[in-house]
Structures are given as structure tokens and as C-alpha cells.
């Protein structure tokens, strides 16, 4: 399959109730896709359907054989009751390559250490995850995602809980690992500026109006769409 991920006539939704579709999408190796849309527009549902975490109501989602995903979920989803350290969390990212019942090898541990170093959090490895700041948590989750040597890096609102400085640092890190390792990136975000700055492909989605458009930035982020979905006037300078 020439494409890494293909959606063919896919309808997304929950419990066999279609929300939006049919959708067609082809994601090639090395592309950086930003998924944009208003709150409750179906961004996360689309992402989970692409990842195979939610079954498509109809149509087919095809992923190239052997594709390994690295996933950066929203840090708020983790239960603060769990006393796991940063080192333990990052180690979990390597489990994509270590099957149940098997132990990690020295080589696996090297990748984990390397991921901690790349994201600049080696000194935090013994700290509990719940004690970290928003930016540190995102770095830890990014380290976890790249510890598994992924082909596709998936980020769900990676800058939602960080300040502007932290946002820039996180996105520079993402851009850095994408370039170094030739990764494909899928990123859901509310922040149109962040997405347009880093992504080379955009998905604009809104289940309420039945809108779905995927393609290059200039093709998707037209004045009409910016006005309709983000309330931005013509010539807003986003592109």
C-alpha cells in the first residue's frame, strides 16, 4: 500500500450511530497532518477511528502492515491516584515492541533513556508523573511516544495545558523528532495558529454541519472556512 493510512468511505460515530461520513483520506509517510475543528466537532472521534480505537460505523480504515503508533494523549486523562514515575511512564511507550509476559532488553532501556534525553527530561525520570507541570507532563508523554520508535506520532491536544513558551517548546520538539526520525504526524488541536505553523496538511471537520475537508493548507483554510468555523475575517493572515 503506497499510503501509510487510508480511509475509504468511512462513517465515524459511536455504537453504530453514524456521526459524519462518508470520509476519504490518504495519509502518506512523512506528512504532518493537523486536525482542526470547533469543540465537539468530531476531531477525537476521527482520530480514534484512524487509530483503530473506535470501529468505523461503515467503510474501511487500512493501515500499512507493521505500522507502529506513538500516542500522546491529553495528560488530564491519567488518574492522579496512580503513583507512576516519569521513567515508568516512558518505559510503557516501549511496550509497542515488547509483547506481554516478555521483559525489556538492554537495547529497549537504551531507547527509553535516549527518549528521555531527546525531550530534556532525563533529570525528571524518578519524579512522579502527577507532580509535574503541564509542560513537563507533555514532554514525558512525548518521550513515551517516541520510545517505541513509532512510524506515526499521534498527538491529541498536545499544547492544551501549557503556556505560550511551553507550547513553542513542545512543538519544536515535535518538529525535531519528526525531522530526525522521518515520522508521520497526526495532531488534533484547538489552536489554529499552532496547526498552521507546523502542519503541511489540514483536516477541517465539523460533524454538526456535516463538513469534512482534507488537503493542503491553502486548499482547506479558505477565507470562507476561517470565517465559518473560527469567526476570522478575510485576510486574517493565518496562512
Amino acid at each position, binding site marked *: 500500500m503506497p499510503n501509510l493510512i487510508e480511509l475509504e468511505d468511512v462513517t465515524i460515530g459511536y455504537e453504530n450511530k453514524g456521526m459524519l461520513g462518508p470520509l476519504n483520506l490518504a495519509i502518506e509517510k512523512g506528512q504532518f497532518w493537523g486536525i482542526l475543528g470547533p469543540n465537539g466537532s468530531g476531531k477525537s472521534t476521527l482520530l480514534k477511528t484512524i*487509530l*483503530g*480505537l473506535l470501529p468505523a460505523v461503515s467503510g474501511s480504515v487500512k493501515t500499512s502492515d507493521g505500522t507502529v*503508533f506513538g*500516542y500522546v*494523549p491529553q495528560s488530564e*486523562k*491519567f*488518574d492522579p*491516584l*496512580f*503513583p*507512576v*514515575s516519569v521513567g*515508568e511512564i516512558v*518505559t*510503557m511507550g516501549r*511496550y*509497542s515492541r*515488547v509483547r*506481554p*509476559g516478555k*521483559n*525489556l532488553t538492554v537495547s529497549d532501556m537504551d531507547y527509553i533513556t535516549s527518549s528521555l534525553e531527546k525531550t530534556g527530561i532525563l533529570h525528571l525520570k524518578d519524579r*512522579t508523573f502527577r*507532580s509535574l507541570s503541564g509542560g513537563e507532563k507533555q514532554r514525558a508523554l512525548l518521550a513515551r511516544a517516541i520510545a*517505541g520508535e513509532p512510524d506515526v506520532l499521534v498527538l491529541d491536544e498536545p499544547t492544551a495545558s501549557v503556556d505560550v513558551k511551553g507550547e513553542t517548546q513542545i512543538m519544536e520538539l515535535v518538529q525535531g523528532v519528526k525531522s530526525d526520525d522521518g515520522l508521520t504526524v497526526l495532531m488534533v488541536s484547538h489552536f489554529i495558529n499552532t496547526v498552521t505553523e507546523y502542519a503541511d496538511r489540514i483536516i477541517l471537520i465539523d460533524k454538526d454541519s456535516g463538513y469534512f475537508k482534507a488537503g493542503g493548507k491553502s486548499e482547506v483554510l479558505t477565507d470562507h472556512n476561517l470565517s465559518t468555523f473560527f469567526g476570522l475575517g478575510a485576510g486574517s493572515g493565518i496562512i
Partner: protein
Amino acid sequence: MGILSEFISSYFLWRDPMIVGAVSGAVCGFLGVYVVLRRIIFVSAALTQISNFGVALSFYLEGLGMGVLSSFIHPFILSTVLTSLAAVFFAMKRDFSRISQEGVIGFGFLIASGAVIILGDRITKGAHDIANILFGNAVVVDPGDVYIIPAVALAALVIHIVFYKDFVFVSFDEETARLFKYPVRTLNTAVLITIAVVVAVATRALGALPVFSFLALPPLTSLFLTERLKLVFALSVIIGALSAALGYFFSFVLSIPTGASMAVSASAFFILGLLWREVKVRT
């Protein structure tokens, strides 16, 4: 000193129940870490009651005279089978037609509790046993329990050591585990079945109250004391075993019900842990 020397000199009376209690406390303390961290404490309450129901049903069927089927309705086998089936059900089924899983677990707890009382009322021969199981009174234990409970505990611990990383992973982040094509449902079922089997054998020996206490209170206490996950497991094992041993000791010397004494001992550790945590936070 007199009480202690009297206690020590009568070790032949308490040796077996002490072994059974301490091992049950230790293994329940270990497994309880998953119960607490997955926020399914009510599952352990429901499983202990379903185990009780299995024992009560066994006594009831035995009273009816089932002949050659009697070996299949042995309290140990019936309670283990029913508790394991309930664990599989709770692990497999998450959505119950707009009713939360917690609601269905509550239903399981209540129907099992009600059925135990109804069956207990119908049993004449084993009425005293039913009361002991409900409230816990492990003054003496069956000789076989000295072997069965450590063997079950060892088997559960071996499974949990081999799959430690996997059980922690699916407990902490099930979504990513599914993304990695982990057998999440199988691993979740394995966690609950090990809990169910241990609950079934420990409840029959000690009673529902202390077993439920060991599953909940030592892990909660450990979470007050440390922020290291592996240390939480280790401390929970130690506190579970100590709660059982001290509970038995106080039951022996003060002539109070054993199961209740074990539950109060575990509660005392919980209060000490809470105080320690509060002092640490304020200083």
C-alpha cells in the same frame, strides 16, 4: 507479659489460622493495589458476597441430598466457580444499556447478599458456618486451608510477577495498550480472575469482612506512605499480613470475633497512614 507468654505457649492453637490469615492478608493486600488503583473497590465487595453465596448455596444443596453430585457442590469449588464467572462477567461487559458498570456491580453485591441471608435461613446444619462466613471468625481453619491458601496465593503471585508490566500498563492506560494491540480484555480478565479465586478461597477460610478489608485498606494505607508503585505493592503485602496477624492476636487475647478484629487492625493501619500523610504534608 503474661498474656504474651500465654499466647506464645498456645501456638499449636493459632499456628494454622495465623498462617492462613497472614497469607490471605498478604496476597489480598497485593491484589488490592489493582482494586484501589482501578477504582473498583466495590468489585471486591461484590466478589466476596458472591463467594459467600457460593458457599451458602453449597450448604443448601448438600442439605437437599445431591448424592454423587456432592463433590461438585463442595463449598470451595462452587464459590470459586461462581466468583470467577462473576469476575469474567465484570471484565467482559462494560456497557449495560445505559446503566454504569458500577450499578451492575452494586446489583451483583445486593442480590448475592440477599440470597445468602435467604439461604442461611433455610440451612439448619450449617447455620453457624454461614454466620461465620458473613462476619468472619477464623478462630480455627480447615487443615486443608493451610496448604490450599498458600498454594493459591503463590500461583496468583507468580502470574502477577510474570505479567507485572502488562497488568500495570492496562490498568494505567488501557487506550494506549489497545493501540499497541495488547490483549487488553484477556489481561483485564486475568487480573479479575486472580482476585476472584483468591477472594473465594480466603472468604471461605476467614469470612467476607476481613477479606474485603485486606483488599481495600492495606493498598490505601500504602498510597499514604509512598509514591513508588513497586513500594506500594510491597508495603501493601506487609500491612495486609500484619493486619491479619495482629487481628488474630487481639482476637485471641481479648476474646473478640477474629474477622472483625482483623478488619479493625487494617483500619488502625489506615488511620496511622492517614495521620502520617497529614503530618508530612503540613511539615
